[in-house]
C-alpha cells in the first residue's frame, strides 16, 4: 500500500489549501477593512445580547447599527431597560427619554373551568396550529387563550409557565417585556403593559354579554359598570370590552369591586391603598 498516496498527499493537499485560504482571508480582511463607526461596537457591548428582537431589529447587532445609522430611538431595548438606554444615550450624546419597563399580561381568565373546551384537540401541540383548524378553535371562546403553551415555548427568559388551570402564568420578575409572546400568540391575547399598571381588564372578548356568558363565566360582558364608576373616567368601552387607560389610572380599585364578572385584575398597589383607607 502506498502510504504516501493514501495518507500524506491528501492530508498535505487539504492542509495546504486550508492554510492558503485562511491566510488569503486574513490578508483580505486587513486589505479590505471597512471603517465602521466605533459607536456601533460600544453600543453592542452595552446591550444585553439576548437577541430577542423585541426592539424590532434582527438581534442586538442590528439594533446597534440601527441606532447609529438609522437614528433608531435609544430606549428600544426592553431587556436592558432604563440602565441600558442611559448607556446608549451617553454613547450617542442624546437624552435617554423616559422608559417605563413593560411586562407581558394575559388578557384572559378563561380557565378550563370557567370556559370549557368544546372539543378534545389532538393535533400538533401548538396554538398556531390549533388556531387554523377547519371548523374553529378547540376552545369555545374565539378571543381567549387556547392554552397549548406556544407563548411558553417562545419565551427566551423562562418567564412563562403553564398553570394547572390551562392558562399560562407570567413570572413578572423574569419577564423583560420583549413581546415574543405577544407576537406569537395567534389570538393576540397577550399584551404588554407597563410594570406600574396595577388595574387591568383580563379579557379579550368583543362579544356582547349573553354571547360571552354562553362560552365563559369569567369574561367581560360589556356592562359598562366600571366605566360609570371610575372616578377619573379613565375606562373606555371598545366594542363591548372595557379598556383602562393606564396613564390616568389612580389605582383605586373601584372598577374591580363593581365588576360583576370579576374580570378586572388588581395588584399590590390597590391592596396597599385599601389597607391604608
Amino acid at each position: 500500500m502506498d502510504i504516501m498516496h493514501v495518507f500524506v498527499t491528501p492530508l498535505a493537499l487539504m492542509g495546504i489549501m486550508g492554510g492558503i485560504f485562511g491566510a488569503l482571508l486574513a490578508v483580505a480582511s486587513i486589505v479590505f477593512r471597512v471603517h465602521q463607526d466605533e459607536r456601533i461596537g460600544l453600543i453592542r457591548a452595552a446591550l444585553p445580547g439576548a437577541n430577542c428582537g423585541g426592539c424590532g431589529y434582527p438581534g442586538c447587532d442590528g439594533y446597534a447599527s440601527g441606532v447609529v445609522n438609522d437614528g433608531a430611538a435609544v430606549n428600544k431595548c426592553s431587556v436592558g431597560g432604563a440602565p441600558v438606554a442611559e448607556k446608549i444615550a451617553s454613547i450617542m450624546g442624546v437624552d435617554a427619554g423616559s422608559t417605563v419597563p413593560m411586562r407581558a399580561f394575559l388578557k384572559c381568565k378563561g380557565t378550563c373551568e370557567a370556559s370549557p373546551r368544546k372539543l378534545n384537540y389532538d393535533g400538533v401541540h401548538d396554538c398556531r396550529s390549533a388556531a387554523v383548524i377547519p371548523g374553529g378553535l378547540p376552545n369555545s371562546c374565539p378571543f381567549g387563550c387556547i392554552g397549548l403553551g406556544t407563548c411558553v415555548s417562545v419565551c427566551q427568559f423562562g418567564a412563562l409557565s403553564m398553570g394547572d388551570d390551562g392558562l399560562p402564568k407570567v413570572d413578572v420578575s423574569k419577564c423583560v417585556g420583549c413581546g415574543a409572546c405577544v407576537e406569537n400568540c395567534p389570538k393576540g391575547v397577550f399584551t404588554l403593559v407597563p410594570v406600574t399598571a396595577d388595574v387591568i381588564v383580563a379579557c379579550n372578548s368583543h362579544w356582547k354579554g349573553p354571547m360571552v356568558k354562553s362560552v365563559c363565566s369569567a369574561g367581560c360582558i360589556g356592562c359598562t359598570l366600571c366605566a360609570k364608576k371610575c372616578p377619573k373616567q379613565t375606562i373606555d368601552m371598545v366594542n363591548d370590552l372595557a379598556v383602562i387607560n393606564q396613564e390616568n389610572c389612580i389605582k383605586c380599585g373601584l372598577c374591580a369591586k363593581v365588576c360583576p364578572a370579576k374580570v378586572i385584575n388588581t395588584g399590590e398597589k390597590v391592596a396597599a391603598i385599601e389597607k391604608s383607607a
Partner: protein
Amino acid sequence: MSITELFLLFVSSIFVHNILLSRFLGCCPFMGVSSKLKTAQGMGAAVVFVIVLASLMTWLTYNYLLVPLHLEYLYTLSFILVIAALVQFVELALKKLNPVLYKSLGIFLPLITTNCAVLGVAVLNMNEGYGLAASLVNALGSSLGFLLAISLMAGIRERIEENDGIPDSLQGLPMALITAGLMSIAFMGFTGIIK
C-alpha cells in the same frame, strides 16, 4: 464543444434541467426567501454571481489540482473549502470595493455559501466532464434558471397573499408547496424541446 452545443446546453440548463424545478437543488431559499419579489431577486442575483464564480474556481481546482494528484475522491471536501473561502473573500472585497452591490446582495451572499445548488452545479460540471467553457455556460444557465424560478415563485406568492379565498389551514407555506409542485410539473413540459 461547438457554439451550437454550448447554446443548447445554456437553454437546457435554464429550462429543461432547471436547477430548482427539475433537479431540486437549493430548495431551501426557494421556499424561504420567495415571499417578496424584491428579496427573491436579490437572492437570485447573489446565486448567479456565486455559482458562476464557484464553478470557475472548482473547475480549476478539480482539473489542475485533484486530477494530477489522483485525488479525485476528495472533490466534495475541496469544493466546499474552495466555495466557502471564495464567498468569504468576495464578501470582504465587495464590502470595500463596491458597497452598492454589497448592500443589494446583502445577507444572501454569506447565506448561499452552504447552498447545495452551488456545490451541485460544481459537481454536475465534474460528473458530466465539461470543459471550462461548457462549465461556465452550464453555471450561468443553471443560476439564471434559479433566478427565473425563484422570481416566478415570488410573483405568484405575492398574488396568493392578496387572495383571501384560501382556507386558513392552507395559508402560507402549504399553499407555497402546492404552487412549487405545480410549477415543477409545468417545467416538465420543457422536456423534449432539446434532444
